[in-house]
């Protein structure tokens, strides 16, 4: 094994950061470079709802202090965008016109929020909650006791919803097929879950029953900032509207790289792509499931961290397979609260 190898990791989420940590442990002399679009070092995005509990300093969300990267000799390059991967030359091209060579490449770019096409025309009126910056921007827009409308739901949005309710805000979930993403629920269980959400203090509007979303409009001055108009004629006013329909993997920069893509990066259970020097981990990769005979995603903090760990081990000599770390069942407690394993992060 060459101790002077250069490991490049694209993405500094749970998977990327865990991989860097493991790589450093296993190859003390290797050069490790983390590339990220984020302006901040790795922070706990799952924890962002805490901004509504008064935690507004980004340093509160950091998993490791900035000095960690210096101490571990891990190169952390923020606000850089990878635009291309040349697997033959083993280089990545960065948007600012720099080329970076690698010996191994780990793709851990995760995913970004999915927005159904029929809502894309309203994008300028929608908010996000995927980054610290977006979370803070939303907090500044929502007054005390204000209203947040969450379109879709998904377990990320519902996690925020329960915090908002706890902090005295009004939350309206415009429910649809992806309300409990990534859980896949039967129609009967779904109805029961929606009732529980209501008992948790979340208002539910069934998008299908209301004829779908007709329009999202900016409110007139002095009124609510946003209005959602449904096909039925019903309207819902809110201070912000947050689309929350699950994730789509960020893989555009891999087009033309030669590695196999579907919705995400297709990998074996050893997280290997079709290029020997490139592995993938986290929400970006679809892992072969022998049982299901298909490539599938494994979400959740524990799974993603395990993938980062495994990818790093397999980059440094191991040849192990991924084993899921958490169940995918959505639980109801006492008929009044729900609990998702995807909310377990620490």
């Amino acid at each position, binding site marked *: 094994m060459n101790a002077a190898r250069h490991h490049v990791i694209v993405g500094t989420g749970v998977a990327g950061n865990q991989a860097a940590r493991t790589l450093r442990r296993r190859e003390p002399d290797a050069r490790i470079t983390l590339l990220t679009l984020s*302006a*901040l*070092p790795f922070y706990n995005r799952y924890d962002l709802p805490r901004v509504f509990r008064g935690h507004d300093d*980004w340093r509160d969300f950091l998993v490791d202090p*900035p*000095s*960690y*990267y*210096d101490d571990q000799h891990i*190169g*952390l*390059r*923020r*606000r*850089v965008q990878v635009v291309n991967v040349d697997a033959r030359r083993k280089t990545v091209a*960065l*948007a*600012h*016109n*720099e*080329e*970076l*060579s690698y010996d191994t490449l780990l793709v851990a770019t995760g995913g970004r929020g999915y927005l159904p096409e029929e809502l894309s025309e309203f994008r300028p009126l929608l908010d996000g909650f995927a980054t610290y*910056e977006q979370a*803070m*921007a939303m907090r500044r827009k929502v007054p005390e006791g204000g209203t947040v409308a969450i379109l879709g739901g998904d377990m990320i949005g519902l996690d925020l919803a329960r915090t908002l309710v706890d902090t005295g805000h009004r939350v309206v979930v415009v429910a649809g097929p992806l309300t409990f993403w990534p859980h896949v629920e039967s129609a009967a269980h779904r109805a029961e879950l929606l009732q529980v959400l209501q008992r948790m203090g979340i208002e539910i509007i069934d998008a299908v029953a209301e004829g779908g979303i007709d329009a999202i409009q900016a409110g007139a001055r002095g009124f609510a900032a946003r209005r959602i108009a449904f096909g039925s004629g019903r309207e819902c006013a809110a201070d912000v509207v947050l689309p929350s329909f699950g994730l789509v993997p960020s893989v555009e920069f891999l087009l033309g790289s030669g590695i196999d893509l579907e919705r995400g990066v297709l990998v074996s259970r050893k997280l290997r792509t079709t290029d020997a020097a490139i592995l993938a981990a986290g929400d970006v990769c679809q892992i072969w499931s022998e049982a299901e005979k298909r490539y599938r995603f494994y979400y959740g903090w524990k799974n993603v961290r395990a993938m980062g760990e495994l990818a790093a081990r397999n980059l440094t000599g191991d040849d192990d397979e991924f084993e899921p770390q958490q169940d995918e069942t959505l639980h109801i407690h006492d008929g009044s609260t729900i609990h998702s394993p995807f909310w377990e992060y620490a």
Partner: protein
Amino acid sequence: MKTDVQVAICGSAGEGTIAAGDILRNALAGAGYRVISFDAYPAEIRGFGKCVARLRVTTEQVYSLKERSDVLLCLNDEHGIPHVAEVRDYGAVIYESKSIAPLASGRHVSAHVRPAQIPYPLAIRELCERATGAVRSRNMVALGYLAGLFGLAKEPFQRIVEAKFRGKGAVADANRDAFEAGHAAGVQTFKLDAVEFGPPVQGLQSTMLSGNAAVVRGCLDAGLDNFFGYPITPATTIMERLAVEMPKRGKRLVQTEDEISAIATTIGAGYAGARAATATSGPGLALMSEMIGLAVMAEVPSVVFVSQRGGPSTGIPTKTEQSDLNMALYGSPGDAPRVVIAPTNVDGCYRCAGKAFEIAERYQTPVIVLLDLYLSNRYESVVLPSTPPFEANSDKPLGSEELGPAYRRFALTPDGVSPRALPGMAGGMHVVTGLEHNEAGRVDEQPDNHEAMSRKRHDKLQAALAHPDFTFAKRFGDAGRVDVGLLAWGSTFGECLDAMFRLQAEGIRCAAMKVVMLQPFPVDLVTRFLDDCAVVLVPELNYGGQFARLVQAETGRLVQRYDRVTGSPLRVEDILGQARRLVQAARRKAA
């Protein structure tokens, strides 16, 4: 909320780096902040070397730049990269996000931003092209972004840009549009750093001046009649500014063919009764040294501004140093005593410039005003007096009884200052020569005469140590006995003063003294200071400890030298380190 933000702007020569710093400091001073700034630039005119403009923006009075900047604005990757490390934790690094040329691995600023710093990539070139159709105003895009990001009011910037480009039509429009484009991007950027500009000082009416500009104001307020000069970095801007201002006042400036002519004509004008001056740097002073001896011998008032730079020889023209002290003190054939003064800040440049003419006239002597590049190019917010605090004529009164056939131009008087008749004055006929002469000015090589005249030329200068309204040396900090004293001259005193405040905050009893009058030396004031200090540190920007040796020679006391010749100003941290070390050693010894 107090403001203490240091901004560094880094780029290549010709990219508008220094201009951006100039606009920023003037805008912020105009907004009511106190600003101290210093530009470092290469000897090359365009396209090669690195330019760095640094500004410390405060609401409280400070005396030096900080070691670490809060904001770095990079207009050029290659030159910006070495400066990223100077940005403090949670400070901001603003840089071009889209290079037009392919960059090798690690040659983009983003590769060097440390995890605790906040990166702000900005498509400077693209924004500029979109706003103006060209890329020349990239510096204004960057400035606009900085203003937008930190919530600085736009109006002061607009006023400065308007004034700077008045009458330049399309250029003015481009700069304004570029600023607006950058500002819009800055406002939209989510601010993650911990850099805050608080409200400016209410009612602060200060003027933003460089050391050289302050010299010019002092000269004009003192009634400078004639200036003769030959360009040399870093003194040139004195002549450039005077060339604009003097004709408006009916005064004359001549660019001579060399430094020898410059000093010769200055002495000639002084002999004729005009207030005259020249300005140069170390190499020029070397050429002037023989003529300065003539001014000493002929007892002609003349003022020489010397802005020191890295030496010897051509040396490092655009780097700062304090290594011409010995030449200023002693650099002439024979015993040639002259007055040497050295301001320590921009305000001092103004006062020393004006006072130099008074002293030169009153004591009939050349006066050398020692600046250095750091002080010449340093900008500070200063409040100038509404009425010039300088005498229009400081000549020793000439009684009519002293004129006539028996007039003795070089009469031996109790104070050593002889009656000075100007050419053409009835009854004032006399001979002037560089040869040793008697009281009438006639050549006289007799031993007694030479001794008497030498004594006269030396002793008359002692009275300069009592010249009214002039700070010869001044003590700051703790009174009485102190653990450590910092003794400095010229531009380095600001760093010493800030170091003193830091040492006091650490519980170390500390005092600092600046010495402005270097010759004649204020022995009593300095000796009293030395007596109060357990140890004395003398930081200065030359290799041989020229000032420290002067202090030791004049006072007979030992001091600790701290000599640096990096071409850059001293760092407060370094002075602190030296001072702490001395204090600890003294305490160990005492224990």
